[in-house]
């Protein structure tokens, strides 16, 4: 059985005097230990809300969460608050996009990390301090003894993100959720952080949920990829399969619209028309259909269901891209 099982997860924001917003709508996926699963999509696709729902970090008021999130078979969504707080931090932790606002500015880095270990692993302060120094070294922060005493504003952006990852790793979590962990960083620093995450997954067997909008990051880190659009998974596949032959027009559109380092200059990009505001509700049909170049009349009449099309591959589309491209366009492998 998978380490983390997400089934039919839905999140609705209910506000007075405003229409209810369905941010996440029936999302299901598995995460195995030592594997990285990507949640990919553009702003407003529900990828961050999904991760917050899994972590139990959504505000209670005004949000309705339904479905199931099982860690090792234990249902997390129905755990009592206290028990959930205990497991979060010990079994699951999260790395956010903005390391500056995620760290407490008035508490030294070292104290923030060792507190987590004192609380969840029952270490004495002394032992925890020692462990914190080891962790900082582990995530590639030079001179950890000195850094432990520093405050978040004294560290550079890359250092802060490393410190945040160190804090997330403090309890050797079995599931790590990384929400756009490198978006705020420069490319050379991004490369360092992604490398660190790859090593961690390989060495500790932590399951990593990677949330990103960057297809390049996905291609370099994720084993399995879930593409989200307007709160639903539209395509889900193993990484090589997905990039070699996207079947959903949205996935294909995303890939065609990104400029790449290895394509010659001057090739015209093929953008997706419109923007994410141009959706129809999923209840009326495919939310992507107003922007879709392959849309058929039924796309705006009947909601497409997500269906398995082959082992490990799921698709939600009435008129998917044919498979032919895959056999011809893969020279090696």
């Amino acid at each position, binding site marked *: 059985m998978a380490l983390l099982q997400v089934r039919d997860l839905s999140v609705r924001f209910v506000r007075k005097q405003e229409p209810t917003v369905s941010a996440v709508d029936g999302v299901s996926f598995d995460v195995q230990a030592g594997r990285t699963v990507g949640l990919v999509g*553009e*702003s407003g696709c529900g990828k961050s809300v999904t991760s917050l729902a899994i972590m139990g970090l959504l505000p209670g008021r005004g949000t309705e969460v339904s479905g199931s999130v099982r860690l090792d078979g234990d249902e997390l969504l129905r755990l009592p608050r206290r028990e959930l707080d205990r497991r979060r931090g010990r079994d699951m932790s999260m790395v956010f996009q903005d390391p500056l606002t995620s760290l407490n500015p008035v508490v030294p880095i070292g104290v923030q990390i060792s507190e987590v270990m004192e609380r969840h692993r029952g270490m004495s302060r002394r032992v925890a301090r020692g462990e914190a120094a080891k962790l900082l070294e582990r995530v590639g922060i*030079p001179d950890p003894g000195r850094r432990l005493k520093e405050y978040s504003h004294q560290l*550079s*952006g*890359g*250092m802060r993100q490393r410190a945040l990852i160190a804090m997330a790793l403090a309890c050797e979590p079995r599931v790590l959720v990384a929400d756009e962990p490198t978006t705020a960083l*420069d*490319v*050379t*620093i*991004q*490369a*360092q952080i*992604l*490398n660190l995450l790859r090593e961690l997954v390989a060495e500790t067997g932590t399951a990593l949920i990677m949330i990103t*909008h*960057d*297809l*390049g*990051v*996905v*291609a*370099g880190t994720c084993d399995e990829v879930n593409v989200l659009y307007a709160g639903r998974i539209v395509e889900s596949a193993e*990484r*090589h399969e997905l*990039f070699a032959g996207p079947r959903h027009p949205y996935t294909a*559109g*995303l*890939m*065609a*619209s*990104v*400029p*790449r*380092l*290895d*394509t*010659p*200059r001057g*090739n*015209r*990009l*093929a*953008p*997706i*028309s419109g*923007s*994410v*505001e141009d959706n129809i509700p999923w209840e009326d049909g495919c939310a992507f259909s107003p922007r879709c170049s392959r849309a058929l009349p039924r796309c705006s009449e009947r909601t497409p269901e997500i269906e398995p099309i082959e082992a490990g591959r799921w698709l939600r589309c009435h008129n998917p891209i044919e498979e032919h491209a895959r056999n011809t366009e893969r020279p*090696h*492998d």
Partner: protein
Amino acid sequence: MTETTGEPNSGSAVPDGAGAQEPADRPLVELRDLRVHFPIKRGVLLDRTVGWVYAVDGVSLRIDRGSTYGLVGESGCGKSTLGKTVLRLEKPSSGSIVLDGTDMSRVSGEPLRRMRRRMQMVFQDTLSSLDPRQSVESLLVEGLRAHGMDEGRGRTERRLRELLSAVGLPASALRRYPHEFSGGQRQRVGIARALAVEPELVVADEPVSALDVSVQAQVLNVLRDLQDEYGLTYLVIAHDLAVVRHVADRVGVMYLGGLVEEADSDELYERPLHPYTRALLSAVPVPDPEVEDSRERILLSGDLPSPADPPAGCPFQTRCPWRQPGVCDVERPEPRELGEGHRVACHYAESIRDGALPGGSAGTVE
């Protein structure tokens, strides 16, 4: 303050090493040893200068008419300051900015304002760069009015519709306000606004980095179509090397206020010579698992030094995997020409290229 308006029109006011050139092959923009240093001030009542931020520190480059120059670098490298200085939104500390034969570095006041018609800017943050209180129509008309190009109601209206259709917006957008548009549409408004005054040079500072991936391509295509149609010259500033690769004819790589490498786009991406460019290119994620799994990465250690306290010698020496003690930490390398139009500021560029210098592998993984 000395005003040197009018004088540059004589042509000879600008010393030119290559002698008198025909306007046709004269570059539209030429920067010579441009420096922009910001004072760090402290003090309660009277400000005292306690140091300098060397935001741009000796950059020389040329941008040919009708071409696109891509400026890449990481945050804090001075690329945005350079862009603003080219447009004279910042004052250069020294060096010259020559636009079509006119040295703009000392022009100010009304003559400068009038020159702004010829050079325009496209911003990164589409929401904050458009006045929230103005409708699209008044935002677009404003430029025309400022430069006396507002020639009667009928003609202006026609011109506005023309502009909107050039950037792919419907005429109904005229009466709307910036917050009513999506990010991509707002960027189109920003582009239309810049184009309204018929500029020759457009400086685009991170024009697509705030936009959703699927929308970035739309805006990049609009920029290209406009260049083809109006013969615009672009200076595109971006941290995303893939975007620059896609749009630029010539690319300059900035690090800590200086240009470390400059070449034609294909040349630079295929044969990067400077260690920083090589590291940068190897760090950009490529949306292709086959490439990602097999590529060599040069992982740089550490972070960018502070531009207020740049290291001695080569600015990149603190992070360079090929650093040679006794040389790199002593002498600042000047840009040298290696191959046609390919300039590199590195003491050991050839040896690194030929693999003759040990050390690089220490920073390489896989």
